[in-house]
C-alpha cells in the first residue's frame, strides 16, 4: 500500500476530466432539464475541428480557446434547434434525453465521414514528466488538472458573483418566478449550454493530448462523470465536481489494488452501491426532482 499517495494523486488528476464533464452535465440539466448524453461528443467534435486548425498552424493554446468556443457554439445550436423546439410537453425530460442520444449518433457519423476512423495524433501543450510520490505524471496531465481547477473556480465565480450567474441560479430554482421578474429564459438556456459544452471541450482537449484523438475519446470519462453526478445529485454543481474527483480516486484505487481489468465494472458497482446507501445524495444534494 506504499504507493497509495501516488495512486490518489493520479486519481485526482484523472478525476479533473470527470469533474469537468460532470459539472457540464449539471449546468445544462439545471437550466433546461436535459440530461445531455451528447456532451462528450460535442466536446470531441470541437476538438477534431480545432485539431484541423492546429495542423494548419494555429498555436496550440489558441487551439484550446478555439475548442472551448466551438463547443460552446455547438451547444447553443443544439439547444436552439433540437431542445427548445420540443417545447415543454408532458414527457419533455425523457424525450430531451433521447434526442441527445440521437445527436451523439449523428456526431459520431459526422466525425467518421470527416476524419475517418483512425485515431489522430494530437499535440500536447507541454512536454515532459514529473515524479510525484514515486510515480511519473506528465506535465500535460498536471496542466490539465490546473486548467480544470481554474475553469471550475471561474464557473463558481460566475454563478456566485455575476448578476447573470445569479439569475441563472434563480431560474434553476424556480423558472416561472424567474420569468416573472424579467429573466430571459432563452438567454439563460443559451449561456448554460455554452458553458456546459465549453467545459466539456476542455476535458476532451486534454484527454486527446493525453492519448490520441478518436471519436470515442470521452466515452469512458463520460461514464465516470455520470457516476460522479450520481454521487453528488443531478442538481448540485459542487456535488458534481466533488463527485467527479471522488470517482477518479476510487477508480484508480480499485484499479490498482483490486483488479485492473474490471475498472468499468467497479465504477458500475460503486454507482449501484451509492444508489442503495444514499438517502438523498451522499453530498447532501437534496432529492429535488425537477419533473
Amino acid at each position: 500500500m506504499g504507493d497509495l499517495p501516488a495512486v490518489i494523486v493520479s486519481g485526482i488528476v484523472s478525476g479533473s476530466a470527470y469533474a469537468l464533464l460532470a459539472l457540464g452535465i449539471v449546468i445544462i440539466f439545471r437550466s433546461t432539464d436535459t440530461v445531455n448524453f451528447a456532451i462528450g461528443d460535442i466536446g470531441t467534435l470541437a476538438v477534431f475541428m480545432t485539431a484541423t486548425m492546429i495542423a494548419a498552424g494555429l498555436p496550440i493554446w489558441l487551439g484550446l480557446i478555439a475548442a472551448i468556443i466551438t463547443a460552446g457554439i455547438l451547444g447553443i445550436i443544439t439547444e436552439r434547434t433540437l431542445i427548445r423546439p420540443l417545447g415543454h410537453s408532458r414527457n419533455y425530460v425523457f424525450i430531451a434525453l433521447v434526442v441527445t442520444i440521437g445527436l451523439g449518433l449523428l456526431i459520431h457519423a459526422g466525425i467518421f465521414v470527416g476524419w475517418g476512423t483512425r485515431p489522430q495524433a494530437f499535440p500536447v501543450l507541454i512536454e515532459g514528466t514529473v515524479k510525484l510520490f514515486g510515480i511519473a505524471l506528465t506535465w500535460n496531465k498536471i496542466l490539465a488538472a490546473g486548467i480544470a481547477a481554474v475553469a471550475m473556480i471561474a464557473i463558481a465565480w460566475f454563478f456566485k458573483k455575476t448578476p447573470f450567474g445569479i439569475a441563472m441560479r434563480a431560474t434553476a430554482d424556480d423558472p416561472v418566478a424567474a420569468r416573472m421578474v424579467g429573466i430571459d429564459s432563452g438567454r439563460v438556456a443559451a449561456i448554460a449550454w455554452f458553458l456546459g459544452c465549453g467545459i466539456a471541450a476542455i476535458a476532451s482537449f486534454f484527454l486527446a493530448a493525453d492519448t490520441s484523438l478518436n471519436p470515442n475519446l470521452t466515452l469512458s470519462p463520460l461514464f465516470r462523470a455520470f457516476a460522479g453526478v450520481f454521487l453528488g445529485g443531478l442538481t448540485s454543481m459542487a456535488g458534481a465536481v466533488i463527485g467527479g474527483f471522488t470517482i477518479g480516486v476510487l477508480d484508480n484505487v480499485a484499479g490498482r489494488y483490486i483488479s485492473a481489468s474490471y475498472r468499468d465494472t467497479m465504477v458500475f458497482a460503486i454507482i449501484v452501491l451509492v444508489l442503495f446507501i444514499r438517502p438523498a445524495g451522499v453530498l447532501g444534494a437534496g432529492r429535488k426532482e425537477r419533473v
Partner: protein
Amino acid sequence: MSPANMRRLGIVIAGLALAIVVGPYRMVGDYVQFIVAALSFYFIAVLSVNMLAGLCGIWSLGHTAYMAIGAYMAANLTKMGVPVEVIVLASIALSFVVGYILGLSAGRFSVLYFGLLTMALALAGTEIIGHWTAVTGGDDGMKVGKAITLFWPQPIETKNAAMICVILATLAYLVGEAVSNSQLGRRWLAVKGQRIASMSIGLKPHVENATAFGMSSAIASLAGIGMAFSMAYIDPVAFSLDSGVTLIVGTVVGGIGSTLGAVVGSAFITAVPELARDAQAVANFVYGGAMIAVLLFLGEGIVPAIRRRIRHWKGRDRVNTNVPRQAVDAQAMARLVSELMPPARHTLSLNAVSVQFSGLKALDDVTFDIAPGTAVGLIGPNGAGKTSLLNVLSGFYKPLATTTVKLGDADILALPPSGRAALGMGRTFQHAELFPELTIRQMLLTVAALGRPLRRANQIALNEPEAVAERIIGGLGLAPYADYMPSELPFGVQKVADIGRVLAIGASVVSMDEPFSGLDEHERSELRAILRGMRSAGVSILIIDHAVQEVLSLADKVVVLDFGKMLATGEPDSIRRNPEVMKAYFGSSHHVEPSPETSAKESANG
C-alpha cells in the same frame, strides 16, 4: 370472444404459421430465414426497451447486457446438453433478479437516473464479456451449439432456429400486450405520470419501477437466446453500448409505448444495416437523423402518430362539454359515499407539528385532533402553512423530530406514504394531479383495485374494481368524460375525478387541498353534497380552502393558521367572530360572511 382475445388468438396463429414457414421444412431460403430471425430477436429486444420507456418513462441503454445473459447462457448450457426450454426459464429468472435489484437502486430516485445507470451497465457488461473468457470466450466470441428441445427428437439446425426466434417473439408480443392492458401496466403509467399522487393511492414507485425493470430485463434476455441460436456464434459487439443505442433508435422510430411500434422499430433497425452494408457511418446518420426527426416532428413515434391521425379523422379527439347537467341530488351523493367509504374509527391526532425549510419555519407547533367522523377546517392566509401540513400528513414532507402524528395507535410518521394509504388515509390535490396517461375510467379502475384490501377489511359490499369504477362514474356524472385523458377535460371535471379517486381507494380519513377552487357553481354544489355525504357516512375530513364560508358552514371545528402558527381554534361560530382571525385574514376586523344566502345582510353592517 372479446376483441382483445380475438387479437391474441390472431397473434398466436400468425406466430405459429410463421414459425412453421421458417422452420425445418425448407419452405423458404436461407436469407429469408436469417431476416426473419433477426427481425424476431430485434423485435423482442426493442419491445423490452419500448415497454419500459412507454409505461415507466425509463430509458435503458443497457438492455444489451440482458441479451448477453440470454445469449451466453444459451451457449454454455447447450454445451452441457440443457434443452432450450430450460435455458429460457433460467435466463428469464436470472435477468429478472438482476434487473429487479438494479431497478430498486435507481427507482428510489428520479427515473432519469436509469439512463445513467444503464449506460454504466452496458459498459460494465462489455468489460465483463471481454475478460471473463472461461464463460464468454472473451473478445473472440464463442460458438453456440444446436438447440436441443423437448418437443423435437433432433437438435435444431442453426438456420431453422429462426423458428425459435419467432416463437419467442410471439410469446414476448403476448406478454407485452397483456402487461400494457393490465392493472400492472396502469399502475406503472400512474407512477410515471404522477409519482407523488401515485403514493397517495398506496403505490411504492421504486417497487413498481423495479418490477418493470426486472420484467423488461427478462424479456430482453429472450432476444439474446434467439440471437445465439440463429447466429451460431456470439460476438461481444452485439452487446456493446452502441447496440443498446440502436435499440433506443428502434423504440423511438416505431413508437414509444406501442407493441406494434416495436414491430415497426425492429424492422427499421434490421433493414437499415442490411441496406447500408459496408457503410456504418451511413447507418449512424440514418439512425440519428431518423430518431431526432421523429421526436421533433412526430412526437412519440410512427405508430402512435398514425393512431392519433385516425382518432382525429374519426372525430374522437374532442370532448363534448355541452353535456346537460342534472340537478345535484344530495341524497344520491350521500348514498354513493356511504357505499364506498367506511366510517372512520380512530382519532387522527397531530401533536406539535413543525416543519422547517432551511431557516424558515413553515409550521410551528401545530396541535389539534380530528375525532372520527368530524370535519375540521383549516384556514389561513396564503403562506400560512396549510398545504405544508397536508404534505406532512401524506408523507411528502418530513417534519421535525418533536412532531408526532397518530391515527389511533398507529404512528403515521413512521410509515411511508403508501403505508398511510393502506390505513385509510386519502387526499385530494389542489390541482387535481390526475394521472396524465390514464383515462378517468382506467384511473378509477386502477385505484379501485388498489383499494380492495381496505374495502374488504371494512366489510364494504361493493368490492369488484369494475363495479366500483362504474358506480363512481355514474354517481359523479363522469360518464361523458370517462374515456378521455385528463388533459382533454375541463379543470372542474378533473377535480371531481380527483374526488372519485379517494372514493375509489375507500379512504376513511380524507384531507382535501382547496377542493372548491376552480369549480363552477354546479360542481360546487356537487362537492357540497359529497362532503355532507362523507360526514353522514362517518368519514373524517380535513379541509383546506380559501372559500372560507364553505369551510365554516361544513366544519365542526376550525383551525386558523398564520405564518405557520396556530392563531385560533374552535367552532365555526367562534372563529367567525374572532377579531384576531379577521385581522390575519383581511388586515382589519371585518366579519366573515357566514353563508352565501345571508351574505348581503352581513356585509351591510360589516
